[in-house]
């Protein structure tokens, strides 16, 4: 979940007439989790579906609504202007076909505002921009740019001074030597051409989605801004623009439009959309009996506009609330405006009779039997390592099932058996008193025809007098008592077991597993100083009954 860092004092100023406590008490009811607090600073986790909460401006809008200070939808006032235009060349179509944007004027930009805007930009890039692949933003000092602009392409040897640099370098150099170039260059693939925004004087404004030009850098002296967003589809680029526009307007800027044309591009509308929800759906889902006006006032607290028409609530949704897909989203907005803390939980009688799965029940009974036999239950991960599963037990690893890019060395492959894990457990307990008797039931994996999952049962006994007879008695007794099954053992060899002390376990002449004394070399490698015996059988095929 993305995190935003805020100052309570700044928030109080933005929200108006509110105490610090009111703010901290209300934040969770906007779906914002307070991660940590340090005096005036607070770090907040917000949900990726609400990119408007990536700045204190956006959070202030939400708080104003919830606290009833200012409710209803935020209207974007975009002044039509013909001064600003971007024309799009058709050669961008194959690379990054869409551009959109607007102008924001007469704002006050202090250090903290710059910080908030930068953080917003990063969060938008990461979230809805999908690490800049889907869409990316450039925010520029408007007064350093001569209009009209052109969104076009260039060769990789095109040169300009990028942000945070003092000298002109080529596109190729940007992609190979700067951090952003290395991180995001892959988005452009191998095409010889790259997207570029040039101004009327052929000066480079931006090289999307990588970096802006240094000349348009926003500082505390900047008064007027140009926002441009490029992307691979128009809707997403305009969604992103609607968030930026709402935030900038809340930050005190006046918005003006930018004319966009060419190659299937057009000027953004940033329109509100209408959606209706029936009062009955609201009341059914929330199990409340709210009248239309209560529903409307709740929606307004969630910063939406609404009116009643017949039995339907017609809702007006600002463009930046593109997380709202349909009526159920509006039900949630009603619930939030109404206040989750005001919803009293109810316990309705169940219409159904519950049942434990028969497999779980049988495994639980088997557990009880093993405990009766003096065995302690162990639990190991299904995701284990090659060392534990194959190397330590001498087993053949040709049918290994691995996961991609595990962050943990100990968890890279799926287990095909349980016994190796139990042996590993013994090795970690050599300083504890003996006898040590362990068992485990659990899922194991095999690759026959894609991937199959089975339930295995394994047990291990380690002490001075541990021997084959003991462990066979245990298995025999467990299966006879548990399932009324009679086992037989047939001489066999297995790399994990001592030769001449190993057998396959059969039920009705069908092999279900292996039993024996553990190979002394394995015990030695694990530094276990007593004999170890064990077995592992499959329960899935002929033992467990399912419904």
């Amino acid at each position: 979940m993305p995190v935003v860092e805020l100052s309570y004092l700044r928030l109080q100023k933005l929200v108006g007439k509110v105490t610090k406590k009111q703010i901290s008490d209300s934040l969770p009811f906007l779906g914002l989790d307070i991660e940590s607090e340090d005096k005036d600073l607070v770090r907040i986790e917000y949900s990726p579906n609400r990119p408007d909460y990536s700045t204190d401006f956006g959070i202030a809008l939400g708080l104003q609504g919830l606290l009833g200070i200012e409710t209803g939808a935020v209207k974007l006032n975009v002044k039509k202007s013909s001064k600003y235009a971007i024309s799009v060349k058709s050669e961008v179509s194959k690379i990054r076909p869409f551009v959109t944007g607007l102008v924001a004027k007469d704002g006050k930009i202090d250090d903290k505002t710059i910080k908030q805007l930068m953080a917003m930009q990063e969060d938008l890039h990461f979230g809805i921009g999908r690490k800049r692949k889907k869409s990316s933003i450039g925010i520029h000092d408007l007064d350093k740019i001569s209009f009209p602009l052109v969104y076009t392409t260039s060769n990789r040897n095109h040169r300009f001074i990028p942000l945070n640099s003092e000298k002109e370098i080529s596109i190729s150099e940007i992609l190979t030597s700067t951090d952003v170039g290395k991180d995001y260059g892959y988005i452009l693939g191998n095409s010889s051409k790259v997207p570029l925004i040039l101004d009327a004087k052929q000066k480079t404004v931006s090289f999307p989605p990588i970096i802006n030009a240094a000349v348009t850098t926003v500082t505390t002296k900047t008064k007027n801004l140009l926002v441009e967003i490029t992307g691979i589809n128009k809707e997403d680029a305009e969604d992103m623009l609607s968030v930026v526009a709402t935030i900038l307007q809340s930050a005190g800027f006046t918005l003006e439009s930018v004319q966009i044309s060419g190659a299937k591009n057009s000027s953004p509308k940033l329109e509100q959309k209408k959606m209706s929800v029936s009062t009955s759906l609201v009341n059914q889902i929330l199990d409340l009996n709210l009248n239309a006006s209560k529903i409307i006032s709740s929606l307004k607290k969630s910063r939406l506009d609404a009116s009643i028409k017949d039995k339907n609530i017609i809702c007006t949704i600002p463009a930046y609330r593109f997380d709202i897909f349909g009526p159920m989203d509006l039900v949630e907005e009603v619930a939030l405006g109404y206040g989750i803390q005001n919803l009293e939980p109810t316990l309705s009688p169940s219409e159904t009779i519950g049942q434990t799965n028969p497999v779980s029940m049988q495994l639980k009974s088997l557990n009880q039997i093993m405990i009766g036999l003096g065995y302690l239950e162990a639990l190991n991960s299904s995701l284990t390592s090659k060392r534990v599963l194959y190397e330590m037990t001498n087993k053949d690893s040709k049918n290994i099932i691995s996961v991609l890019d595990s962050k943990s060395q100990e968890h890279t492959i799926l287990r095909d058996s349980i016994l190796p894990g139990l042996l590993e457990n013994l090795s970690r307990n050599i300083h504890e008193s003996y006898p040590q008797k362990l068992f485990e039931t659990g899922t194991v994996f095999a690759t026959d025809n894609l991937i199959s999952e089975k339930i295995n049962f394994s047990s291990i006994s380690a002490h001075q007098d541990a021997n084959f007879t003991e462990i066979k008695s245990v298995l025999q007794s467990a299966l006879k008592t548990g399932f009324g099954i009679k086992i037989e053992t047939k001489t066999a060899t297995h790399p994990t077991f001592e030769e001449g002390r190993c057998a396959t376990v059969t039920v009705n002449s069908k092999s279900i597993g292996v039993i024996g004394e553990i190979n002394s070399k394995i015990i030695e490698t694990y530094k276990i100083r007593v004999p170890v015996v064990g077995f592992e059988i499959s329960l899935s095929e002929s033992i467990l009954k399912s419904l």
Partner: protein
Amino acid sequence: MSQVFHDIEKKIITSLKDNPKQTPETLEKSTKLSPDQIRRGIEWLKLKELAIVNESKTSIVSLGKNGIESFQKGLPERRLLDLLKDGPRKLSDLQKNLEHVFGPAMGLARKNDWVDASSDQISLKTSPSELPGEKTLKQIGDNKLPQDKIDKNDLSGLLKRPDFIIEDIIKTKEITLTDSAKSIELSNSSGAIDVEAKVPEIFVARTHPLKDTIDEIREIFVTLGFSEILGNMTQSSFWNFDALFTPQDHPARELQDTFYLDGVSAKKIATPEQIRKVSESHKKNWHYYWDINEARRMVLRTHTTCVTIKHLAENKPDEARVFSLGRVFRNEKVSYKHLVEFNQIEGVVVGKNASLRDLMGIQREFYRRIGITKIKFWPTFFPYTEPSLQTMVYNERLEKWIELFGMGIFRPEVTKPLGITKPVLAWGGGIERIAMLKYGLDDVREFYNNNLSWLRSATKCQ
């Protein structure tokens, strides 16, 4: 409180009351107990601080071969002096009479000036009534005596003579009662044992503490009317993500969060209609190119929700309460609060009257049954539910609110493409976190360490 004694202890105490200083041997005689019983009894009484055991070393003397001969026939020098009582005798005559003791007898007699020896004639000068050593020889006789009971001076001469005295060092134990033991009144009741004594520790066989928590949670939901369904841990991305309205370019689907199986893709993932409708819902709402090959990639399930949604898609019930419980996986760095593999329970309620307040009520009832009463609900976000809530529970030990189960109502974008028409309430969360609160653990890894010292000691009934 009167003390309880073993029969052995009683007999020893009684005997020592009659005869306060004894050795194990005397106790054997007086109590008629075996040496081993005496040994154990003394040890018990010593541990209870009722008996004092003084161990001492004693030197015991007895007569050797020459000593015995002298005891029977007299010291060689006495025999010489006796032969001379009736007048001088010839040297050869004395030699013949005294045989091998003639030499030592003659040496001593001359040294002490008891005889006169001229040419081959020996005559008596004086005959002491008691010679050095004679008293001691008589005293020891056939017995073994402690050295300290014998005249040291008289013994010292004998000690110097070959084979006269045998010395043995013997360890002896002297047992006495402590003052508190002397006042003990022995009851006559028999068969009682020392129930206050320490006993050896034995370790129980038991189910794993985490399994106990899992079973407890399973049982609660079964009694709340839920039926358990099982499903695979390996799932196609289709059921783990796509069917749950998680777009294919969503960050949660990346390798760094989800475990993909190397080189394994599902051939048949769902019915053609399910695939078509799910993909349409994605295209319409998320504006991107939906790739069926991405949906085929096999993952280790990141939640058990894939099991319940598949169940609902296959059965389309009008009325149902089901849950799925089992291992789920996240590609995370293992730490005290994160595991790559943990247990999750996830359940759904389907019904035409199912509501958000019902969902909250089920949660509240569940928490009440596991002993958590201080709870609250906060809004949150999940890609596949709307509205979405999370439960916060207050933990007294940690003195803070902790996030537990998440919940919500499945989005129409999830249910509609799969042909599910009734509202579906869904809830779920990790089980280890609850077990950590229950067992007071701060490190979640303990559940899978199989550390016997913990498994053998964790309190089972709580």
